[in-house]
């Protein structure tokens, strides 16, 4: 037993574990600074955010160590069971009383548990297991469909809570698919779809009118028209530039793409009018700069940017923040989604730049680990981990520094929230465990 423990510890990837611990510690310190009060300075207080956070971190590390003692094959074989259990939790949580308008939490004593955080690693396990099964090929439509359902089932349940932020994270699995051989055209197509969709919403939100030779159009109609023209132009382009024998397929792709684009714009317009609520519409308007509203919807963003900007090159110093902490509360949700503000305010550009470097290094290390696996399961799981963490990191920071609309997802290891830290830790420790036996097992 002793030998075995030594064995595992000796093989654990130290850079990843080190980066993980640094990020967790930095996160804890930031939560501590943000909710510190002179009246009760002790760090171990369950009434305070940092007290709870410390408890959750401790639990996470204990579970993490337990995971390190598990057999890799056991983890792999439990993948569907874990996936099933978490999906069940997602179903049950919908019947729990709503907190802040969402049925996302189980409430146990003073602690709340958010199963959607566990869905991330559970789904990763399930996908990794499925795709690494012998004979499964990503190129096959059947495989794609199964993977789609593996993602869509928890995704659908999460949407019912509703928690669109977390749902968004599930889109990150597309990167994994790409790595595992999914056609790049699909990724490219999605990228185009996002650009076209965002522009559609932009024109819709701007409610601008365009004057064309005395004819006044709403800008979004003109946009539709342009897409139509583009399709036609591409059609002629194909006629003149492509050799006849390849034309047929290109024509079909072009017409299909153009039709899809038009449909996308129509559905964006439709969604904007009917599905979106005013608050969503306002967020888009603020993000597009159509509205500079520092009191209403733009408030969060305005306060967050003020806090970050006020940090200056070197920051105000630990405990010296004046905007993003519990005492002044200028930045809303500073301990959760906007925790980066606390960090950036106290440590300035040096600190915030160091943090994004740390994150980047952390993500690169995960990908490096994934790439060195002989085991397909571990590689896929590693990519899942990297993709999910990257999505979180990208969307959260972009939102906080005003490059994306306000979407409520946490910054991994930093944001207060027990389930999140536990879920991410489990992911990292599973990866560490799987990685540690990469030389032992051929799979």
């Amino acid at each position, binding site marked *: 037993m002793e030998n075995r423990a030594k064995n595992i510890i000796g093989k654990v990837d130290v850079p990843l574990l080190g980066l993980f611990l640094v990020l967790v510690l930095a996160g804890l310190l930031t939560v501590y600074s943000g909710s510190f009060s002179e009246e009760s300075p002790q760090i171990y207080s369950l009434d305070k955010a940092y007290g709870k956070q410390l408890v959750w971190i401790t639990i996470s590390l204990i579970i993490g160590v337990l995971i390190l003692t598990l057999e890799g094959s056991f983890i792999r074989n439990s993948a569907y069971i874990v996936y099933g259990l978490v999906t069940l939790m997602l179903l049950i949580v919908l019947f729990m009383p709503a907190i802040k308008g969402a049925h996302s939490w189980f409430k146990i004593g003073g602690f709340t548990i958010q199963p959607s955080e566990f869905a991330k690693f559970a789904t990763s396990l399930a996908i990794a297991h499925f795709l690494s099964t012998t004979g499964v090929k990503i190129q096959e439509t059947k495989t794609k469909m199964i993977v789609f359902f593996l993602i869509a089932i928890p995704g659908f349940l999460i949407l019912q809570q509703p928690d669109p932020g977390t749902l968004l994270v599930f889109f990150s699995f597309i990167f994994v698919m790409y790595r595992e051989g999914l056609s790049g055209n699909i990724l490219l197509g999605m990228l185009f779809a996002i650009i076209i969709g965002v522009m559609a919403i932009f024109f819709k939100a701007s409610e601008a009118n365009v004057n064309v030779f005395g004819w006044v159009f709403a800008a979004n109609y003109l946009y539709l028209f342009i897409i139509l023209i583009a399709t036609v132009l591409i059609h002629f382009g194909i006629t003149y530039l492509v050799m006849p024998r390849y034309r047929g397929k290109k024509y079909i792709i072009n017409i299909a793409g153009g039709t899809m684009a038009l449909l996308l714009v129509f559905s964006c317009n439709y969604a904007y009018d009917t599905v979106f609520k005013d608050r969503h519409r306002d967020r888009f308007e603020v993000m597009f700069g159509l509205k500079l509203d520092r009191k209403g919807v733009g408030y969060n963003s*305005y*306060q967050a*940017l*003020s*806090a*970050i*900007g*006020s*940090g*200056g*090159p070197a920051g105000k110093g630990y405990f010296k923040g*004046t*905007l993003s902490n519990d*005492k*002044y*509360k*200028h930045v809303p949700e500073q301990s959760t989604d906007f925790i980066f503000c606390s960090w*950036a305010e106290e440590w*300035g*550009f040096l600190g*915030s*730049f160091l943090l*994004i*470097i740390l*994150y*980047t290094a952390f*993500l*690169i290390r995960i990908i490096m680990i994934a790439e060195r696996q002989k085991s397909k399961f571990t590689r896929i799981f590693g990519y899942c981990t990297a993709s999910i963490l*990257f999505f979180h990191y*990208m969307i959260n*920071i*972009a939102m906080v*520094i*005003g*490059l994306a609309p306000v979407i409520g997802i946490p910054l991994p290891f930093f944001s207060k929230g027990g389930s999140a830290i536990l879920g991410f830790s489990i992911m990292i420790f599973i990866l560490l465990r799987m990685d540690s036996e990469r030389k032992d097992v051929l799979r």
Partner: protein
Amino acid sequence: MLVVTLVFGVRLLYIQVLNDDWKIRAEQITQHKVTIHPARGFLYDRNGELLVAVNQVYDILVTPKDVKDIDTAQFCSLFDISRKEFLQKIEYACTGYNVSYKASTFIESMSKEEYSRIAPNLKNFNGFDSRRRTNRGYPYGVAAHVLGYVRKISAEQYSEDQNVGEKYYNQNDYVGVTGLEKVYEKELRGERGSAFFLRDYAGNDRTNLEENYAIAGNNLYTSLDVKLQAYGELLMTNKLGSIVAIEPATGEILTLISAPSFDPNKLSGREFSKNYKELLNNDTLKPIINRPIYNDNYRPGSIFKLVQALIAMQEGVITENTGFACNKTLVNCHNHEHPSNVQIAIKHSCNPYFYQVYKRLIQRGEESSIFKDSRLGIEKWNASVKSFGLGTKLNTDIPGVKPGRIPDANYYDNEFPSKSNPYGKHRWAFSTIYSNSIGEGEIGVSPLQMANLAAIIANKGYYYTPHLVKKIGKDGSKRPEYLQKNYTMAAAKYFDPVANAMEMVVENGTARAAKIDSIIVCGKTGTVQNETFNDHSVFIAFAPKENPQIAIAVYVEYGTWGGVWAAKIASLMIEKYLLKELSEKGKKKEQEVLDALILDKHSDFK
């Protein structure tokens, strides 16, 4: 991924290092500068009694967001407002600078009494709270004209301060508007402090970054004797006129009374506008006017004979023992013994005697033309009279002091009887202006100047400019100009016969009503002819004769002749001041004065 990190890095570099906009915005969000208002100085009387201090008042505050589950009907009846008013006030508390989650004033300046009535019930109404504040308060309720009042700075004064002034005030500052509050504004107001706070999202100040303490205003130690002031105001009830009492040895004003008066508390707090309008417009007796300094067109009447006698002796046109016949053909007089010297002439206030004296002063025979001679004479006479503080503005520390008028050659040349049709140069002589000889004619004197005249005679020839503040600040001193002796052009030796005569006036002359058994009072009556109504009653005096402690002038408008009301009031003031308690005789006199119905008898004057 590296692209994302690069974008983030550039963006962070921009907002944290390169661009200062967000730093400025952060400061706007977090920092809050608060002005700390210093306590305004108090005013004390000469014995350390508090004249002006503070009144506790209570503001009722409302935080509209927290107003829940309250019994509006009960609330309205408790505060005596209508439901409509209630809703208006709540709405006002949510508009403009007021926001619903912050407390704002619901009712301003409730008195202690009003507040104690509602205080026990206030806690039943969620969202309502109270705040204690201070207003200017006047424990004795006297000396309104002297003290002045404090008011929110006017738009004109504010813009003047900003444009050409010292740029000290804010638009919500309170400033002294009249009286000592105005004159000593800079000393009383102190020095503003400021504090820098970090505030939280709701606008509450949480952390004090720095603080420049406010420096409280200086207290003023006035020369007033509040008991004497109050007593004088009591004696002047139902009368029009003035009392001014001065300590001759220092020039300190003991009382400065303008009747009718009013309670200065009326001009403090919520009812200011209403009360001020009433005082200014609705009262035909014009209580807002400060008569003893502002009414300088009172003719002094016979008390002016004292000045004439002193100047004449100094100029050598008469001696102490010069006598003139009481020739009633020159000017009207009453029957009395032969004025064989100055003392007897003063004692009986002999008009023909002073006609002769004035004639000698004006027509000295230096020019053959009486017109030219009069011009020379009046210029000399004018200079001498002005040395008594008459016809010249006394630099007393109260706003609105007027100079009075002692006519000179220019006046008769160009201004009298009217500017459009004056006598003209060399068109007038003594015979034209002889009314001045007995304090009638074109002489105008304020009661303050009359009291100063009494102080001059008490001091035998000099005066300190009458003033109201003994000390600025506890260890301070008075203004330096009030330590300067002003000498008259009459030598000290000529004052003895005048003082002796004044003693006789009280002992057995025209002012026997002013006699006090245990004190030698020196006085002089005056009766100022008044064509439209009863004569005005004037009396000046000082006492005791040796080492005088008090010099006083009493002017009772329409009070008939000087011996009646003015002398009685003056003697009561002197007795009260010097002996503290009134004698039996004094008490009888007091009752007569209090019962006097000078105003009530005549309802139709303006």
